[in-house]
């Protein structure tokens, strides 16, 4: 009797396995073809000297990787990525939190603020990049026009290597701060109404409520926001490529724009693949370390 039951269970399990395999097959196929195989293939191509067009390529072993380690342009790009990452986290999340807090405290009356603040998120990064190329132009740009109105001269923010990166970081903040606002608004709704009311009954001011009660409760979601912003900043491409193309010089070059240029403008597919591989390794390492640190603190 027991044996029978067992074999029935075994048969059922086999049936479940089969059904699960059928349901999972398409997703696994797509991931293998478009994610896993390309990752392996990128590392393979990185051992070649190949222009991406001609049929013949030469195997050069780790030469591309050795070159990458000594490539100043790549490490400049990496440092720029780190700057974008840190400033994005430090600007966008506190601002987004401040805006969300305003919306939370002001109640229904502030809906109009929430709606209009969200507008920058409605444009794609490419469109934002183009818009600001003109909006920040030396001639006929917004900043220049305001400066002239106030009696100043023309302002060239994007053409100056000292200001270009910070200008771009500002534009990125313009686009993404609204995202962190709605993110924080959503996090606020997770704090129960009772907590807020109880603290007011106990005589807490709104400021005290924010610093002593809301902020500690929001901490986990702010952490995930930071991780989100970090991963996003490290692979940033569209907006910078459109606005500055990495220039002037290498002042706004990022890992992704550098990879793109090496592969598709200079036709160094082999070296471009090494850059892509290096980027992959660095981003994975940084993500792992940050998650370790953030999760470690929790205990």
């Amino acid at each position, binding site marked *: 009797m027991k044996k029978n039951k067992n074999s029935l269970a075994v048969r059922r399990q086999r049936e*479940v396995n089969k059904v699960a395999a059928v349901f999972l097959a398409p997703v696994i196929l797509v991931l293998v073809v478009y994610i896993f195989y390309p990752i392996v293939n990128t590392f393979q191509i990185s051992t070649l000297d190949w222009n991406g067009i001609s049929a013949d390529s030469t195997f050069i072993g780790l030469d591309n990787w050795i070159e990458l380690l000594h490539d100043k342009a790549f490490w400049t790009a990496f440092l720029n990525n780190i700057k974008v990452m840190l400033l994005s986290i430090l600007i966008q999340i506190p601002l987004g939190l401040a805006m969300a807090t305003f919306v939370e405290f002001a109640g229904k009356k502030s809906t109009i603020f929430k709606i209009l603040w969200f507008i920058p998120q*409605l444009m794609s990064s490419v469109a934002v990049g183009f818009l600001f190329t003109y909006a920040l132009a030396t001639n006929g740009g917004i900043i220049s026009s305001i400066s002239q109105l106030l009696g100043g001269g023309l302002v060239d923010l994007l053409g100056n290597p000292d200001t270009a990166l910070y200008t771009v970081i500002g534009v990125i903040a313009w686009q993404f701060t609204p995202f962190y606002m709605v993110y924080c608004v959503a996090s606020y709704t997770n704090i129960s109404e009772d907590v807020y009311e109880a603290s007011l009954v106990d005589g807490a001011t709104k400021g005290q409520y924010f610093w002593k009660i809301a902020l500690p409760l929001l901490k986990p979601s702010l952490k995930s926001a930071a991780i989100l912003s970090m991963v996003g900043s490290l692979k940033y*491409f569209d907006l910078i*490529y459109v606005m500055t193309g990495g220039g002037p010089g290498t002042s706004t070059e990022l890992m992704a724009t550098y990879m793109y240029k090496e592969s598709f403008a200079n036709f160094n597919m082999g070296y471009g693949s090494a850059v892509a591989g290096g980027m992959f390794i660095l981003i994975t390492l940084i993500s792992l370390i940050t998650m370790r640190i953030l999760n470690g603190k929790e205990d």
Partner: protein
Amino acid sequence: MKKTKIKSRISWAIAIILAVAGLIIAIVPFIFMILNSFKDKFEMLTNGIFALPEEWSLANYKTVLEANFPRYFLNSVVVLVISLTILLFIAACASYPLSRMKFKGNGFIYSVIVACMAIPVHITLIPIFRMSQAMHVYDTIWALIGPYVAIGVPISVFILTSFMKSIPKEIEEAAEIDGCSRFKMFFKIMLPMAKPGLSTLAIYNGVTMWNEYIFAYTLTQSADSRTLPLAVWDFRGQYSMDIPMIMAVLTLTALPMIILFIFAQDKLIKGMTAGAVKG
């Protein structure tokens, strides 16, 4: 008591001033774009960028719409509809066993799929570029569908699996007693019940695909097979000195999102933050 009241009044005043400042920063570039899109090429520079247009001329819009713009738009729509349909269907398929069935490797497969969320997709660009050539789809909109589906898979499976886990099991158990097969159960029960999750994901992935740039830029070349984010790029090549014309292209590009925002604001915001707030 009085002192704190005055203090809170002052802080409110400061908060409102800052809020208004933020509002101005958020919308001035938008106004710049829309205002200037109605102007003539030279009018913008002679009259100043914030002057109202001498006449609200639709000439720029007409030129853009009579050029290749509708083609870019159509390409974007076709790519979006096909990729999104495939993506949501296969993601729902995968999430069903991951959320409901016990089998060896369930946890492992799930974590591998979810881990893909952190992968910078750029690393796949060169091999996918080669693949598109080998498959003879390079420079057609079909080249974009595979990568767009793949980019959306990890987050979609992540969200749908947790969504399906939250659907009560009783209905399925009853259906199972009635002799309903697993496949029937998926199509008749799970898929309809997962609709709210699917609609959130449709918006999230739809916005991502609609705005996607680097793959579209790399895998297509001719104007006939390019999508909307590249329209601006190509128009700039033609009208590099005609800033109002480019502003008209930008406004038209942003228009679908603006319309969606006006009519389905809550859904759009919920969808766009789906990746962060888990559905």
